[in-house]
């Protein structure tokens, strides 16, 4: 039996009081415990940023990599040992800004990974610059006259881009978020969970109050929402644009069953790469080619 407490660490987290990240860590530990994933069988990877400190606060294996590079590191871990549960976490700047190239291509490959984005629509660790998801008009240190760039839409990008599980959660609703995480980790394939995560220090626009008034649960308000319908999922993903952020659906937008990248590799069908012997591979046949 793995209990939630087993994932606890001694170190106190370094986030601001009230930060949405606390709820995300809690929900993640809860989901891992519900799925009974032993500590040593999980690897939590991250990039760099406030949210990317998360691997330090969950007692599993962790890899806090470089800014924007969590996904390729996680992919390498998964290919080397596909028996592990690999979860990548990071912020909107990390994943949708500097790491956006990896995001686009790694979705296409459909590795069995879970990717949780702490989307606070601002750069926190670098003290308050505009991010790829900052709302039009929002004033930040680097947009004193307000953001003019169209915000990046992670959900529509993922639905179009080959992700096989696309969901959104809100850090102000931990129980719902835990359930989404549980489903995402259980899903075989690339799962994106974009989390509305209020930054209490640098984002004075997208606050808990802002989200609480606007979010609604897809499965409650739209019980007929068909997660297998890509066009419908896209429509939901565009609702924030259409309503100018007045209505923000959370929940599972899209799901698809597709073979994972690992499924296509016969060389790791029976044994993970790391379980195979290193020594003694005879290369003489190749020499004769």
């Amino acid at each position: 039996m793995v209990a939630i407490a087993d994932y606890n660490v001694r170190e106190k987290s370094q986030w601001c009081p009230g930060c949405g990240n606390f709820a995300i860590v809690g929900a993640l530990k809860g989901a891992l415990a519900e799925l009974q994933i032993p500590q040593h069988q999980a690897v939590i990877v991250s990039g760099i940023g406030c949210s990317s400190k998360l691997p330090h606060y969950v007692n599993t294996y962790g890899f806090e990599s470089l800014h924007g590079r969590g996904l390729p590191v996680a992919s390498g871990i998964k290919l080397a040992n596909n028996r592990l549960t690999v979860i990548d976490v990071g912020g909107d700047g990390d994943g949708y800004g500097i790491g956006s190239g990896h995001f686009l291509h790694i979705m296409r490959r459909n590795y069995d990974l879970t990717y949780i984005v702490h989307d606070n629509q601002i750069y926190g660790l670098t003290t308050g610059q505009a991010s790829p998801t900052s709302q039009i008009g929002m004033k930040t240190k680097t947009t004193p006259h307000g953001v003019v760039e169209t915000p990046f839409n992670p959900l529509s990008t993922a639905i179009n881009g080959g992700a096989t599980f696309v969901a959104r959660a809100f850090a102000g609703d931990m129980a719902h978020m835990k359930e989404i995480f549980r489903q995402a980790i259980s899903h075989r394939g690339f799962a994106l969970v974009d989390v509305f995560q209020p930054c209490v220090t640098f984002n004075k626009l997208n606050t808990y109050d802002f989200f609480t008034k606007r979010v609604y649960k897809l499965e409650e308000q739209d019980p007929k929402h068909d997660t297998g319908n890509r066009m419908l999922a896209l429509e939901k993903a565009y609702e924030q644009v259409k309503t100018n952020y007045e209505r923000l659906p959370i929940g599972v937008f899209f799901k698809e069953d597709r073979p994972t990248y690992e499924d296509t590799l016969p060389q790791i069908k029976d044994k993970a790469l790391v379980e195979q012997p290193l020594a003694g591979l005879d290369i003489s046949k190749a020499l004769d080619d």
Partner: protein
Amino acid sequence: MDFVFKIAGQAGAGVMITGRMMVKCFTRGGYNVIGYPEYPSLVRGGHNTVQVRVSDAQINSPRRECDLVIALNKDAIFYHMESMAQGGMIIYDQLIDTGRFKLRPDVRMHALPLSKLTLDVGGTEQMKNTAALGAALAAVDYPFEMLETLIREELARKGEEVIKVNISAAKAGYDFVKTNGISFGSQIKPVHPERRPIITGNEAIALGAVRGGMKFYAAYPMTPASSILHYLIDKERQFGIIAKQTEDEIAAINYAIGAAFAGARSMVGTSGGGFALMVEALGLAAMSETPLVVALVQRNGPSTGLPTWTEQGDLRFALHASQGDFPRVILAPGDVQEAFFLTAKAHNLSEKYQIPVLVLSDKFLSETVFSTERFDQSKVIIERGKLVKGPLPALAPMARWKRYAITEDGVSERALPGTPNGMHVATSYEHDETGFSSESFVMRAKQVDKRASKMKKLLKEMEPPDVFGEKENAEVTLLTWGSMKLPALDALALLAKKGVKARLVSFTHVYPLNPRHVKKALRNSGATIMVENNSTAQFAGMLREYAGVKVDFHMLKYDGRQFFAEQIAEETLKLRESGYKGGQRVEVVEKEDMEYYNPQRHGL
């Protein structure tokens, strides 16, 4: 016997494949063979050549002059007339109008109806290179059966029809030369037929890695490193490895670091521009103490430079890449045997010491194909260092395992994900012993010292340079690192013929350097000449810095080609005439300037 062919024609005409066939054909006849390709960065229309040097003696590098040129297009005649040896021969396609060329009276010209011969036996225009290959072998009286057997084997997968028509085309070329009495004058007969392998530097790197336990390779296509990726992807199922083409070089190295963290021996391969993109993650491997091997196959920089030509200009880049201080190793193989064994060794070093190890090759070594002895695979032994096997003792509640424990030799035990009670975080931040990011002054200094202290044992793993030629009392000593060993070895033979007591000191373990090794190899060296394929004598600078040795002369070439042995010998003889006095810098530039890039400029 030392005979040099050159097959030349437009890109896409099958020059490269014909060259490789020829290398294989003569290797099977018991000869030492080198196939050296040159081509511009163009897919269509560029001028491609393969020089095939065949000898019964030990040869190490291409020769400057060619005996027999097989010209598949008019450019081939125009470009290579100048580099023909005295009394050479050009066999060319009859369709080429030679009226506008300045021909040399000593070079014999033979027109062959290559297209007609090929079409008459049911072949396509594309197959005329096969007819040309047959013709070239006939001109030196090499038995046709050798080629026939080879075609059968090489095309086995393509079916009987394809095999038949190719053999017919080759035979048509062969017979035409025989029937018309075209003969070079010298014969090449199979001496002691045996099946020795032929291999490029890149293939040797790939196989060395696989034999060395590499399980994961990631790369983004970049000349001249791409053939490692092609080779490994082609054989990934056979070897039980994963070779992955990623979206860019940044992804490639981060994939490899992830795979290595999980426990698979990993490597990336690239050239200078791609390595520039990898630099940040090289530091990540260092900070997280994740084993990683980088195969850096150099071409001319800066920036895009000359994509398909050669240089040794990235040594200082490899040495200094990344912010901060950390230990690393740079190995530079000088031939295909060394490429195989040193790449295997790189994987051991990177895992034993949990550091990045760079294998530096260049276009010249990596894309040239050499006949060689079979690798003695038993010499490759896998050493994994302080890798934890099996579960670790239970941790206190909420505690993490000390992955980065301070140790005397700087190397800490490494537990892979999946190991019970080994939980820790690898991070790009400075960290404490469990991997928790830390800004403690004390811990920072301790962790820097811990990583740095690996150098002490590492230095003992570095092998001394190889010494060739005059070992006791040399009049002059050539120094090389990496692939310049090859022309320098041939230069040594040329110098010996002139009565010069010369030595060659060839470095493969270029960093860290053991000063004692350097000084020992240079005892009674006479005048010293560093032979480097770059413009600033990068390795000479390193010898000065790390071994306190000042080399007398820097012989440098950075025009896109490697040194020819003849050039090294000529320049050395000039220095000898001056009593080994004069300016330190000796620059070598090709006399012929073929300007392969743009044939139109010549109005051809």
